[in-house]
């Protein structure tokens, strides 16, 4: 019995050891980046030298000498527009596919489902040509309008609306509500968890996206943060404290949003996993 208990304790210790070890692996790069961003440039590769004082000059440098502040605003603007647009478009469509009967509903839904399998890279060439012909390269409309719908999110919204009991809908009918009324007054107030999952996943995806922005943002004033950071790193990689300050500036807003809404994040990610 004694040996069994100590074996149990040892295995419990192992679990904590592995868990903490992996937490170090994920957290150290962040701490290291913050730590280095606070060093003067000359000290950057003096790896284990202690910080002499908190030196925020690298942050002041990138925010005043480079348009990091402007890139931050671009990122926020584009992400907010794309998120709101997606939320409206996907929620409406998901609702119709779950709750309204109309001819060709099943067929249309399968078209959306089938499109989910097409990787985004197939669209690079044709969307670029389309936007170039419309003069939309390097514009806000080019960065937002083609990206206002997501079949995955329509699917997520539909799954949610399918689960709402139909008695609620009938109560609305008896009260004389129209289809819009039923949607807005009965279904929408219930859909906060689904909508917050959509908001989080869309915002995160757009805030961090790089492939489309690096293609569509050709002038410095249109850069969003990931593209701005990439170009800054390319030119100023001798100034690691400033480059890493930019990295923190890019990561921190998303990390703060995540820390505030971490329950919703986890739930949102888990729902995309249950298909």
């Amino acid at each position, binding site marked *: 019995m004694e040996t069994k208990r100590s074996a149990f304790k040892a295995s419990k210790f192992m679990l904590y050891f592995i868990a903490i070890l992996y937490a170090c692996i994920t957290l150290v790069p962040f701490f290291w980046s913050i730590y280095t961003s606070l060093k003067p440039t000359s000290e950057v590769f003096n790896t284990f030298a202690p910080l002499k004082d908190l030196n925020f000059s690298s942050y002041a440098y990138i925010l005043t000498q480079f348009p990091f502040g402007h890139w931050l605003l671009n990122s926020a603007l584009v992400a907010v527009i794309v998120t709101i647009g997606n939320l409206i478009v996907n929620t*409406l469509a998901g609702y119709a596919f779950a709750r309204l009967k109309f001819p060709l509903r099943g067929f249309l839904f399968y078209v959306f489902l089938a499109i989910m399998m097409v990787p985004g*890279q197939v669209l690079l060439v044709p969307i670029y040509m389309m936007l170039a012909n419309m003069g939309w390269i390097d514009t806000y409309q080019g960065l937002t309008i083609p990206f206002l719908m997501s079949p995955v999110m329509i699917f997520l919204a539909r799954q949610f609306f399918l689960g709402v009991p139909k008695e609620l809908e009938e109560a609305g009918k008896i009260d004389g509500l129209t289809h819009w009324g039923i949607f807005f007054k009965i279904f929408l107030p219930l859909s906060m968890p689904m909508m917050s999952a959509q908001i989080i996943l869309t915002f995160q995806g757009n805030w961090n996206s790089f492939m489309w922005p690096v293609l569509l943002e050709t002038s410095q004033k249109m850069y969003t943060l990931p593209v701005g950071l990439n170009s800054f790193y390319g030119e100023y990689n001798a100034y690691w404290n400033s480059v890493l300050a930019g990295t923190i500036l890019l990561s921190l807003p998303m990390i703060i949003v995540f820390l505030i809404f971490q329950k919703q994040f986890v739930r949102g990610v888990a729902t995309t996993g249950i298909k």
Partner: protein
Amino acid sequence: MDNTVSSTTDRRKPGRISRSAVDQALAGYLFVLPAFVSLVVFLLGPIVYSFYISFFHFSFLDPQNASFAGFDNYLHLFVDPVFLQALGNTFIYTIGVVPIQTAVALLLAVIVNRIRGKTFFRIAYYLPTVTSTVAVAVMFIFIFNPNGLLNSFLSLFGIQGPNYFNDPTLALPAVMSVAIWSSVGQFMIFYLAGLQDISDEVYEAAAIDGASGFRLLWSITMPLLRRTTFLVVVMGMIGAFQVFDTVYVISNGNGGPIGSTMTVVLDLFNKAFKDMQMGYASAMAFVLFAIILIFTLLQNWLLGRED
């Protein structure tokens, strides 16, 4: 399926389309309209157009001189050394990344599920996933710098570390480790969700039979998490095949050193927008599509077989 609200009104007026049904259909079309317009204009149309020009020698700079190529673009892929290297690298990347990230995600989920401080560990493990891939790439370029954190750490043990991203044999494995680091958290969440569905009784029954530790994991937990594992593996494969951001930032867009980090999507991007070979790049995109489609169908087949 037919028990929706309109059936009560339909019953009253047999054989006729009721006003309510028309209203409902109209509302349905209006609700779907924005999504449908976006689908046609920004997905279906472009996909069809891209498929069409994949049969042409087509440069965006010189659209007048496009000429019909038949299957030339597709056939040329098989003798294009850059594409073949990119395809090889992408396969190596996928074969390396997917099993490791799946195993680590499963292991961490099982551990986190059994210890205290679940919230802390979940946050710590998920942080890399909410971080921009560009930020992740830049952080690791610094850590993998010849004089960076990793080599400074190794030098404490008297080991002289290499120059990871400038060494053709080490650059791809280094990129792979970055990818694993940033995606494990997401898949761990999938596994945690899957673990919630396994009742304690299953474990109790197994414990009575004398199973414990890894045996429990291997013969009880893993089989019950099969669905999650399929999902994690297929999503992992699809994501791995589309890798672009990290290799673009790390190699400054050229897939170096000597092509060792060139991937299919990076090659596609360069062929389309540096060399302006839009037709050829489109053909490449559809080959990528076919590969990903095979993965997805494989997933559906495996999952469908189980139900």
